[in-house]
């Protein structure tokens, strides 16, 4: 019967423990390196084909951050963040209202009543050659 000597036992166990330590350390390192921070919001939103938005339409896009308005003159995106303190506005048939502090804006984003004093931010959106609408975040 072959008995492992004390010396060999310690040698095997030491090597096993060091290997386990290495694996644990490697796992920690991989976890550290693999940490994904908060993903930044996209800077450009693909809104799909322009023909998806009929003339006269008003469509919330980009998770409600913008109202895409299709007028005769073209497309305009209105930022639905209140210019007072940044609360997300609630769109209505006559414009936008702020659920936080009660500011009201008309359909074009002009202030009807405060506390907001600045017009809603907006920018035109041009379709590309393929008729695709891309919205640069603003």
């Amino acid at each position, binding site marked *: 019967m072959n008995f492992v000597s004390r*010396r060999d036992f*310690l*040698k095997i*166990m*030491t090597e096993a*423990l*060091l290997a*386990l*330590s290495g694996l*644990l*350390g490697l*796992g*920690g390192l991989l976890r550290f390196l693999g940490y994904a921070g*908060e993903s930044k919001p996209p800077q450009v939103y693909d809104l799909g084909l322009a023909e998806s938005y009929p003339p006269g339409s008003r469509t919330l896009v980009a998770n409600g951050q913008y109202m895409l308005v299709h007028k005769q003159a073209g497309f305009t995106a209105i930022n639905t*963040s209140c210019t*007072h*303190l*940044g*609360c*997300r506005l609630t769109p209505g048939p006559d414009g936008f209202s702020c*659920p*936080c*502090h*009660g500011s*009201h804006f008309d359909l074009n984003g002009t202030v*009807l*009543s*405060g*506390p907001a004093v600045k017009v809603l931010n907006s920018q035109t959106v041009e379709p590309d050659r393929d008729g695709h609408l891309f919205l640069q975040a603003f």
Partner: protein
Amino acid sequence: MRLSLFLAAVLLVIALLMAAWVENRRPQALAVTPSLTGETEFCITCHADLNEISPSHPVETFGCVICHGGERLALDADLAHSSMRGGANPSDLSVVSESCGGEQCHSGSPAEARDHIQRVQTSIQATYAGAIANMRYTYGAQPDLNAIFGIQAVQDSETATGIPALAAFDPTQENNPSLQTFAENCLYCHLYVEPLDRQEYTRFTGCAACHTPLTDHAKQDGIPDDVHTLTTAIPYTQCNTCHNRGNYDLRSMTFTERADHPTSRLEDYYQPIAQFTQCEYTLDCVDCHTRQEAMGDGDIHANQKDIEYVQCQTCHGTLEALPAMQTLTDPNDLAFRLAFLNPVINLALGDTIIVTPKGEPLWNIRLLPDGSYEQFGKATGHRFTFRSVMGSNCQQNVDEQESHYCHECHAVER
């Protein structure tokens, strides 16, 4: 040597396993990136169960740190809370400017009625100037009742009351032992300090003393951890954590609680010898008393009676005059903003509301087509109607408008 190496390997494994265990015990971080700051914070990892503090302060817009301070990325509770402002109460007056201030928030201009913090800090509720002056006068420490001291030193460079500043009251400088006793026993009813440790006094300090009402249920075991609300719908029970809880005994310089704790508001809530009309025990204090009366008007006042000005005639008028009224024609009128914050009434352009002699809107009181008025309880939402004195059978002398004259006929039997 080989044994030492083995033991070192064992210790290394144990250390690594412990590190992994500690790491895995950490909660899965939940993040919010408020639009106002754009900076990610992990507070909701542990506090996701807190209710939204108010519709005006949604967490996705404000987050937590802009008001509370704290270490926004820390997942360890002690570290996360280490730099919080005011502990659990960022509205404590020692930190309120940093927590709640800002031009667009609560330290803006008087013209826009956004100077809440400046007004509160010079208000009687914060300075306690009247009580201090009365006590010092009573015990011969000053020759008159002029306000000299406040709880904290305050200044008012544009004083309309003739009081440009108050020095900080320092009881250790007083020679009369009664004034030192007064400081020890009686300085618990102002916004800078925690109240006496009694259930019925339980409230926060600062803005939250009024705007974070604690229900009687919540008060049973002190302030619960999950109180997270700000409101302008303030019930009379919150006002009574300071007001109407007993009497000062000038002989012993102690505050004597009333024994008749409230069960019926009419029968035993108020001072036994006092008289009250129906509205005084039916409405909440804030239904009639105004922002300036409660939070100050920006000037330093000598005592409470100098800032309280709403009377019966403010709403009911006199035999010769209707109450002052204003028809709302401007969508930016302050009345709309206040009604938006506490939507017990659906105000519209063209509505006529009562205004006080100082021009403050009593936005919860609207003129009806038949000449009567409807009033909505700010804390209850209840609707009440009433008529003006003018045209009634009232025999009151027009020059006698203090409430005790009205009580002669209108006080209820108790």
